[in-house]
């Protein structure tokens, strides 16, 4: 029997008799936006199932040692706890593995926003020589030799495995990875007991003008999806957004990540250089007081007591969606 990944986090409803089993994400809370599904890749049971199979399959890498799940562990909100993840032949990735939760709501994919639609995102890890290291053409030919993949691919897309099928199927699966059920979500939906008093103190700090966290990490997604230089370095080896825009003003800018599940997605920053949330808060405290060239003007100068830092971390930890990671 087919079971969507993370059953209990999202409920998928199948509408039969519409040219396939069309799947809808139906239990999103009212405060959460609905994802936009591209018309050429409607969510169907077969497509999500095929994408799930690919996600866990190491044969999607050149030497069959790395699967998507090798770096995107479900119990860590689809991160892996490492600064940089190992790829084929023991090579290290260039950036910290991002969570892929709620990716259906992200307008520009990847830390530099280089990928314009989720349906092409899978190319990045598949073809990166430091990750899975296989050309999409080669991979298509490999999967086309597998009778199971051929059968599932034909059922899902009416064609044998191809670059189109691989990228769309993986995107379909990723579109079902919805995290919207943290204690914070319960709180804002009216359950005043969902947060502890310390977490409420942290929430007040987080939302205060004094810290200005919400200028970037605001809204229900805890991100404005913008690209900002957070003052991590004076000179960036990884140019970030500038790699895409070719604009020197974008050097060191990376997509503002969502803070949902941030308590279990350490280490932090684009290169995983900060080990825990305390280091992150200390970083913003320092750079707010002594800003670096090119740093976002949204980073305010502030100073927090130890107790305030604990409260802020407690609040951030309340953004963990236990159902999602289990």
């Amino acid at each position, binding site marked *: 029997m087919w079971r969507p990944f993370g059953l209990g986090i999202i409920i998928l409803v199948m509408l039969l008799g519409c040219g396939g089993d069309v799947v809808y994400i139906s239990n999103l809370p009212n405060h959460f936006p609905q994802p936009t599904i591209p018309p050429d890749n409607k969510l169907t049971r077969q497509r999500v199932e095929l994408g799930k199979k690919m996600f866990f399959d190491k044969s999607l890498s050149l030497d069959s040692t790395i699967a998507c799940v090798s770096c995107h562990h479900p119990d860590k909100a689809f991160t892996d706890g490492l600064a940089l993840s190992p790829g084929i032949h023991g090579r290290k990735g260039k950036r910290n593995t991002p969570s892929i939760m709620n990716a259906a709501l992200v307008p520009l994919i990847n830390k530099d926003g280089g*990928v314009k639609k989720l349906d*092409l995102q899978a*190319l990045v890890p598949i073809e990166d020589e430091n990750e899975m290291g296989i050309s999409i053409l080669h991979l298509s030919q490999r999967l086309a030799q597998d009778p199971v993949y051929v059968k599932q691919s034909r059922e899902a897309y009416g064609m044998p495995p191809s670059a189109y099928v691989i990228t769309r199927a993986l995107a379909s699966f990723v579109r079902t990875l919805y995290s919207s059920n943290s204690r914070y979500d319960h709180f804002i939906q009216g359950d005043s007991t969902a947060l502890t008093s310390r977490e409420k103190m942290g929430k007040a700090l987080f939302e205060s003008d004094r810290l200005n966290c919400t200028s970037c990490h605001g809204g229900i997604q805890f991100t404005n999806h913008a690209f900002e230089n957070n003052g991590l370095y004076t000179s960036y080896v990884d140019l970030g957004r500038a790699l895409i825009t070719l604009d020197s003003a974008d050097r060191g800018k990376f997509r503002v990540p969502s803070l949902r599940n941030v308590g279990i997605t350490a280490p932090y920053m684009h290169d995983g250089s900060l080990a825990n949330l305390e280091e992150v808060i200390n970083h913003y405290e320092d750079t707010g007081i002594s800003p670096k060239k090119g740093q976002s003007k949204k980073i305010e100068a502030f100073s927090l007591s130890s107790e305030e830092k604990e409260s802020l971390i407690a609040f951030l930890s309340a953004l963990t969606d236990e159902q999602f990671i289990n």
Partner: protein
Amino acid sequence: MKKHIFFFCGILLAGIPFSSCKKESSEPAKAKISFEFDFNVAGDELKLGQAYQINGTTVSFDAVNFYMGGIQLTQENGQVIDLSDQYLLGGIGNTATLNSDLDVSDINSMKFFVGVDPVTNAQEEIDFTSRPPTDPLGIQDPSMHWSWSTGYKFLRVDGDVDLDGDGILETGVAYHLGSDAMLKQFDLTNPIELRSGDNDLIISFDLTKFFTGVDLKAELDTHTGNNLPLAERLRDNLAIAIEVYRN
């Protein structure tokens, strides 16, 4: 020196208008325009894997490809033959065909660009994975798409160089140009004098000129954004590296 000509594409065009007085007029003669690509190193035929000397560095190449689009041929009478909705992929051994049903003769100017137009390059609706394999903008080997960024590699030159002079080409080099700012326009106004039935155009790409001012021992790669100054120099060098002439 004889250049190896890589036949690339051809256009079949109705070259002679039929007479309105004769219903039984004979089949109109076809005029054919062929775009042929000549990849060379200072005039020597380019062979993949063969060592060449460029700017004092020994280098071999294993991929040289570029997109050519926006093709418009203008005749002496002002008629424009617009092929701008079609693309050519310049590459050794590639073949493709552009079709047009326009009459052609006496071409005296030609416009085109190296690269892919911004709308197509954005790949917002149709992307390279949804195009058929026969489409130059479809999936290619070697790849002409970025993976880390949505869009096409307008041009790629890959190879190996000998850094220490021991005769072994041990270090990989890669020069990949992409993104809208890398589009290189050509507007050739010198008369090409194409005439019906005798219409081969040679697109010559000289790698020596392409690498003018580039130190192949020190400037080992650009994927455009990671080394924009080098990418811009290479883009600008296309103006001297590419020549179009009649066969």
